[in-house]
């Protein structure tokens, strides 16, 4: 089996969750690498969309910004923010990738403040397009390190809705039906959500880690999927694509 690092593992695990013929809204970094890898490996008809207006570019290199000229290089359309957000609101974007300083068991995300909003200990950028993606796309994906300071019992501020406080809460709040968190991919595991309780559950664990490792790095009680398997390792071909075509300068996989 090939040698690979943690970032390569996470990008490959994320990429495999993106189906052909669907659309994904991405940011820069690992999510963009995952979408590019999916296109090259198994989903040639995956549509990549950027919030600033880039639609289906042929990405020549990794973008630095979600609005830089790479994000609409040889694209089918260079549009604007309303066009993209409204495409998502109309139900035509299947996946989005999000991050944040904190995530809780319902997949709620905080990228606004640590501490009290009125007198924050740390101020972060805020929603950006995250709340828009997380409210409107069908499935929310997160790539983040497994860390008890990130995986918290309660986020200090719900910037972006996960399942809020449980089953039915998104719909009660007024968000589009049947949307919500889908997968969380970390350096240790792939997690999904229990269909009944909407709580985060471990679905597969990367080689070299145990459920106890994952739990020890999580600030709330994790559920287990009926069958917890070992996450398939990256294949030689995935690694070749990732290293030679997706990120030859190792901007992301070198982190």
């Amino acid at each position: 089996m090939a040698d690979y690092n943690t970032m390569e593992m996470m990008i490959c695990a994320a990429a495999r969750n993106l189906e052909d013929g669907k659309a994904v809204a991405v940011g820069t970094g690992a999510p963009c690498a995952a979408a590019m890898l999916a296109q090259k490996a198994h989903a040639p008809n995956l549509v990549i969309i950027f919030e600033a207006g880039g639609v289906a570019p042929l990405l020549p290199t990794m973008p630095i910004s979600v609005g830089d000229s790479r994000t609409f290089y040889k694209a089918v359309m260079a549009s604007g923010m309303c066009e993209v957000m409204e495409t998502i609101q109309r139900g035509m974007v299947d996946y989005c990738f999000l991050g944040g300083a904190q995530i809780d068991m319902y997949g709620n995300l905080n990228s606004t403040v640590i501490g009290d909003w009125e007198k924050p200990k740390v101020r972060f950028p805020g929603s950006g397009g995250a709340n828009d993606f997380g409210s409107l796309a069908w499935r929310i994906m997160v790539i983040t390190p497994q860390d008890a300071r990130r995986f918290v019992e309660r986020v200090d501020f719900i910037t972006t809705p996960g399942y809020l406080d449980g089953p039915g809460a998104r719909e009660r709040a007024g968000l589009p039906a049947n949307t919500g968190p889908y997968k969380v991919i970390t350096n240790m595991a792939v997690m999904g959500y229990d269909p009944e309780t909407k709580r985060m559950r471990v679905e597969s664990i990367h080689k070299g880690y145990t459920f106890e490792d994952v739990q020890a790095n999580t600030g709330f009680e994790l559920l287990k999927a009926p069958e917890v398997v070992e996450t398939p390792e990256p294949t030689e071909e995935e690694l070749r694509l990732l290293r030679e075509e997706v990120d030859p300068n190792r901007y992301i996989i070198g982190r």
Partner: protein
Amino acid sequence: MFEVVAQGEGPLFMDPDADKAREFFRTKNRAMVSKVMTVSEAVGKFVHDGDYLAIGGFGANRIPTAVCHEIVRQRKKNLIFAGHTSTHDFQILAAGEVFNRCDIAYIIGLEARGLSPNARRYMESGKVECCEWTNYAMACRLKAAAMGVSFLPARNLMGTDTFKRSAAKIVKCPFTGEQYVLYPALWPDVSAIHVHEADIYGNARIKGISIADLELARASKRLIITTERLIPNEEIRSDPTATVIPYYLVDAVCEVPFGSYPGNMPYEYFSDEDHLRMWLNVEKDPEEFKKFLDKYIYKTRDFNQYLELCGGLERINQLRAVEHLIDLGGRG
């Protein structure tokens, strides 16, 4: 009337009344006259203390850097800022502490490059009154204003603390009973947008993504255009499809070649990542940053002088090569 189900607790900095906006736009001159002036004149004439200010582009992509610098250089104060898709523009304006109220969608960060230490200190200082929104929420607010209506509905934001700290309202749809969030129209007092080409009257062309600039141009009461190049009106008239901002929206036209530097300008030059990294690094030490600001903004005469300090045309040539994916083979 809609039944209001919930409302955010945040401050609404601007009046969303569409009739008041119409009264203002009624007075705006439709004469096709030259609006060419320097950035210094434009900022002096059209940016007033206490104004609501919005900046076009996307943070470090197609931004009117010269206008941001000039607002700081002229020491404008008590502005309200639209922190919408703002990154390096926010960093510049926060460095000058020119605003004390902020509608927040995205601030402080420079995306993957990291957070601005100085902007963060400023936002954590308690000097700035805040209201939370999202990128689409702010785009909707501008779109409502551009449409001449006082609000627009959308399906995001609900159920979150972002809503709680916004000035949005949630209502029931009178047709379906579904809940919708309503965004109040936003008519900025003044905005600045950097474009590829414009004529002396303000008819403007943008290549590539428009972000929220088409809405912003139409929502703004006063609009400063900085342009890579001035082009003849005949050229505008030879291809009207290319015009995305018509002249009657525009109050000032300033020719500023390389005017998005150190940001990216699509099809022209890429962002100067070294310079942006230098900003982020020097901000860690407030004393050093003060000297940096003196050197690059307060004691420079204009944007051309700033460009010279940053390496001038030689640097621009390198960034043009990066933009066009041309390998200069070390000769750049």
